[in-house]
């Protein structure tokens, strides 16, 4: 009888040890996957602070948002925080300069050049985006077989970035071009928006 009880006890202890060890290993694997993902998004964002002026620049490297055989479009964003000459009413706001650069085999008509987003089905109207053909652009920078290059610029303010910071699905329309951003690009955008908002908070706290 005693030997049976001892056996059952031994089995239970051994089983629970194996179960816990397995779970820990799984968690470690999960953590490793998450860090590699975080690394890949953070590589795309660059934060620099000028020691002399105190201006912090947060840059998002060009992200391909449309990749067709005859048309490619990228987005890159730059935000400068802590610049001088801001009015009291502007101190709490952020201005992220977003550039949409398009290159194609044949010239693309961007229609009214109005920029719209649908962030998790919630519309965001950014109005008219100034832009046009890049006449002075170095042709060697274009993809092989591509001849036309156009760029447009828009400004995201704090509320726009707050929406991007929580975005799960982003759809976009620039003039006549409509597209849905891929999940990796959405993740990078989300990370960028969060980074800008965090840096803005730090800069504001430093000033106070």
């Amino acid at each position, binding site marked *: 009888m005693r030997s049976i009880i001892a056996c059952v006890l031994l089995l239970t202890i051994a089983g629970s040890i194996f179960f816990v060890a397995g779970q820990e290993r799984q968690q470690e694997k999960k953590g490793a996957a998450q860090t590699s993902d975080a690394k890949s998004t953070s590589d795309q964002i660059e934060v620099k602070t000028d020691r002399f002026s105190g201006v912090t620049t947060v840059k998002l490297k060009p992200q391909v948002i449309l990749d067709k055989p005859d048309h490619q479009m990228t987005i890159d964003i730059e935000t400068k925080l802590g610049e001088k000459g801001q*009015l*009291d*009413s*502007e101190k709490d706001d952020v*201005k992220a*300069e977003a*550039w949409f650069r398009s290159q194609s085999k044949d010239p693309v008509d961007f229609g009214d050049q109005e920029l719209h987003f649908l962030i998790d089905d919630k519309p965001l109207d950014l*109005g*008219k*985006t*100034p*832009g046009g053909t*890049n006449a*002075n*652009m*170095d042709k060697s920078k274009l993809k092989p077989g591509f001849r036309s290059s156009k*760029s*447009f*610029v*828009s*400004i995201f*303010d704090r509320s726009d970035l707050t929406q991007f910071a929580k975005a799960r699905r982003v759809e976009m329309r620039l003039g006549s071009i409509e597209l849905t951003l891929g999940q990796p690009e959405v993740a990078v955008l989300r990370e960028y928006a969060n980074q800008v908002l965090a840096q803005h908070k730090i800069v504001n706290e430093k000033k106070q």
Partner: protein
Amino acid sequence: MKKKSLLHHFAIGLLVGVLIMPPPVARAQWTVFDPSQYVLQVTKKVEEANRWIQHYTNLVEQLTTLKGVLEKTDDMLSKQKNAITTMSNIGRTVRASFQLKDQLEAIVTTRLDMIKRIDDRLRNGIFDPEADLRDLDEYLRNSIGRSSQDTIANRERLARMDNQLELWQRELKLKQKTKAWVEGKQKETQDKLDTEDHKLEEQKCASCIASLTQELASYEILLAQLESEIVNLRCQIENRVKQYNIQMQERVKFGEQVQSLNDGWSRFNNSLDELQKVLSKVN
């Protein structure tokens, strides 16, 4: 003999000591609070209030009946001006008595609520911080700052209705975007010009350099123009925003008032706790 004298000396010393010793100081007693007596008094007050309600209801009923009686008299004496005036006065009295009844009912109901709350407090103990906090909550919600809340809401509505401000903000945003685009183009042109400058003398394209320089100059002019427009718009927006600044100041002031009130209340609660501890020690 010696033993006896020692005892004798000791007895005398004790007697003298008792005589010399100062009388004990009388100590003030704590005020005794008798909750059961207080409950009795409150119950009496409730009964009294009920009696008053009953009394006024009877009064109104009597007057209503009187009104019915007087209506006939009113018909009979309708030709006489004085009589009509009298009837009108009586009618007014009856209506006033109804109004009085309503008002009294309201007062009595409120008082009853208050008495009930006192009664509840007595049952839960006099020092009930939670009840105090509930009362404060009610006060804050229903009384304090109600008018300032309304004022702020009105001003916010006004700000939202300010089409001019919205128009200026839209214009400013567009100008800033255009400025960003022009700056981008300027940089691109400058890069192209630099590339031309770095070429060997014989490879340089004079016409290209002239055209690029001209383009740069036109961008400079455009940027200067945009900059002045942006400054103008920002000034206009800033002035308009200053007009609404009072609203923000009021909000901050109200917040500070509530904060200081909360602090005061928590300090009061702490003192109550301490007092309660002291009282429990004494009891």
